[in-house]
């Protein structure tokens, strides 16, 4: 939506990072639907990819996702992931 909406920026950024980090074959960043399932769908992202994303999110945004229960909620789709990062990141707190 507008440039002031951090969620949109974050979604764009995460799309780029995920494609690069996970070496997703034949997938362009914009093809990741923010509301589509992140796991088990066409992207073929699996549990090992999720762990790799967990590391990246902690490293780049200072947000820890260190148990299965939180992980299951956060990795539902890209929008939920971006929202969780926006809510919990150090930058947004500051």
């Amino acid at each position, binding site marked *: 939506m507008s440039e002031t909406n951090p969620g949109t920026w974050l979604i764009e950024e995460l799309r780029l990072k995920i494609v690069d980090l*996970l*070496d*997703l*074959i*034949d997938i362009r960043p914009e093809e990741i639907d923010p509301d589509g399932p992140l796991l088990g769908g066409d992207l*073929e992202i699996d*549990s*090992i*990819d999720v*762990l*790799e994303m*967990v*590391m990246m999110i*902690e*490293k780049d945004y200072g947000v820890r996702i*260190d*148990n*299965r229960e939180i992980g299951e909620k956060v990795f539902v789709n890209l929008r939920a992931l971006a929202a969780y990062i926006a809510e919990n990141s150090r930058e947004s707190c500051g």
Partner: protein
Amino acid sequence: MTGPPIIISGVGIVSALGTGPAETRKALQTGWVATRPLSLFPTPDDRPLPVGEIRNLPMPGVFPRTHVITRMAARQALEGVGPAPDAVVLGTTTGGMSTTERLIRQGVGDPQAYRFHSPASVSQNIAQMCGCRGPVLTVSTACSSGAVAIKIALELIRNGKARRVLVGGTDGLSRLTYYGFSSLQLIDPKGARPLDLDRRGMTVAEGAAMLLIEAGDPRKTGIEILGAGLSCDAFHPTSPHPDGAGALAAMSSALDDAGLTDQDIDYINLHGTGTADNDLSEARAVRSLFRLARPPLSSVKGAMGHSLAAAGAIEAVISQGCVAGQWVPGNSGLKTADPALKLKPLARAQNAPVRTVLSNSFGFGGNNASVVIGRSTSNHRPAAAGRRPLTVLGSACITGAGHADQTYNRFAAGKSCQGMLPAAEIARYLPPKQVRRLRRLPRLALALAQQAHLDSGRKGMPQSIFLGTGWGALSETHRFLTGLFDSGEKFPSPTDFIGSVHNAPAGQIAMMTGATGANVTTTGGNCSFEQALMVAGLLAGGETKNALVLGVDETHEHFSRLLDPSCTAAQAPSDGGGALVVGPGLEGHGVCIDLAFYSGVIRCKGLITELVNALGRPQRINTRFGFVLAGIPAGDRPQGAGQLHRFRELSGFNGPVIDYRKLTGEFASASAVAAVAAVRFTAAGHIPGALCGGEDRRLKGKGGLVLGLGSCPTAMEVARR
């Protein structure tokens, strides 16, 4: 045909619980939990996770931690039990990793400093310490390594390859395992509570255990290794099959091997790591096998943590102690058994009549092993399982020259195959989604498996995998360590950790092909492929089951020159490997391959005389073999050239001798490429003229020899049926 009883005549054990079987038993009987926050190295957040660490370990001399604890366990096992063992089989994954980590972090560039890096350096060290003249085998199948080693040792004796084997498993704590399992979110911050309702994961630990096992006198009684079984989930790199299908197959196979039924088992020593998935899948497997009544069962990993490659051997020693002392350990850490598991683990140790124990060990790559230990209840003792030599049904090789036929054709034309194929080219014919996370070594392994299967023309895929690799997945290991140190030990990569284990490529092959039989990765520098061939000869069995035997190595721009002296001396970096689809026994026509000589002992005098004698002396050598492919590693050039001269002298062999590393380039499993070439020359019935100075030379029904020279001489025979 009945084999001899395989008696356990010595045991040694070192873990967080203590040193020696008596201390270990006392700790387990009192229910002591030995896991404590890590003290071995500082962690960035100052909140170290609990580990099973051996406190106050004396570290004399230059040896890394794994070597030190293995030596302690080996000394205990050999104390007062007579002459040196005639074979050593050791399961380990970390080798000298704790030292390598420090060297990498400090940027040390002297190859000499890395001489204890490899898992095989531990087995070599033990063989030298106890005066063993070989064979020495190193098994690296992640957390099942120790139990897989026991199965191999058992078959060495059953096959008459050895009478006394020192066998075990070992892994010292390292950053790789501590941070690696942490990155997978598999660690319980409160310490492992296997089978508990509130379990959150495992506890990483260290330890070593060794057993001296030997062919015993059938008239005397003793505690025996009664049987063992292997399987592969062929499902996922790290997660077990949810139904426990692979675990069930390994347990059933072990019972069959021992000639027992589930009702004969008095105690089950569970793998029981404490992770949600492992415990659930293992419970399902146990319930499927033990339908009528279940014996007492427990996991000891709540007390001592999970000592990874050592666990199978540690738990074999504990199981032996249970039979000897008529007791069973409790499941430390258990408060409320998880009702979903539908098992009743023993909360505390107790005295119990124990004649037989089933001990489970499962690992990454879906690699499963079960061992049955106890006093024999019948006279059923199986003879050798494997049938040698192996019939070759298909072959493939990859080098810098390209895929299968590109490499073979260039080799046969006497042209250099040196160099490294780009990673994308290696994966050209592989499913893109399967390889996206894979780096160099698993890509090479998958491509070789695919191409050898295609060459075999068989519909069914090979069911067992035997993979030899000199140095393992160097790209993943190096990336993991540098990524860890670059991030101040904060951000270890789970993908690189999973890929760093030596058996990850063989696990990937199983997933691609659906191979649910034995899945064994051997390692040991230039004779790793030969080790895989030996294990295939011991284990590949069954009426119609084919196996894949392959040797594969990658060259890494930083790591290889530090680890492999031949890579340091090489003209150009090269890598690749070779693969054979083999069938058991002597069925049909075609070409057979057999490992005729293997010692595995470094720098032992008189080995070439032994090698010539093992091949049947000059008369048989000149009657049976029309060519020799000689592998002289660049790092061992003067020694290897001298050995070749000695071979010619002793054997009187005057046929073509091809110095094949000049064609393949320098990498540890170059002998697998040579084996493929030898098979194809023998099948074609001639040696290409380009390799023997002129016209094609007819073999007139003869086969060929592939000699490995240098610090670890070997001989593979290739012959027509």
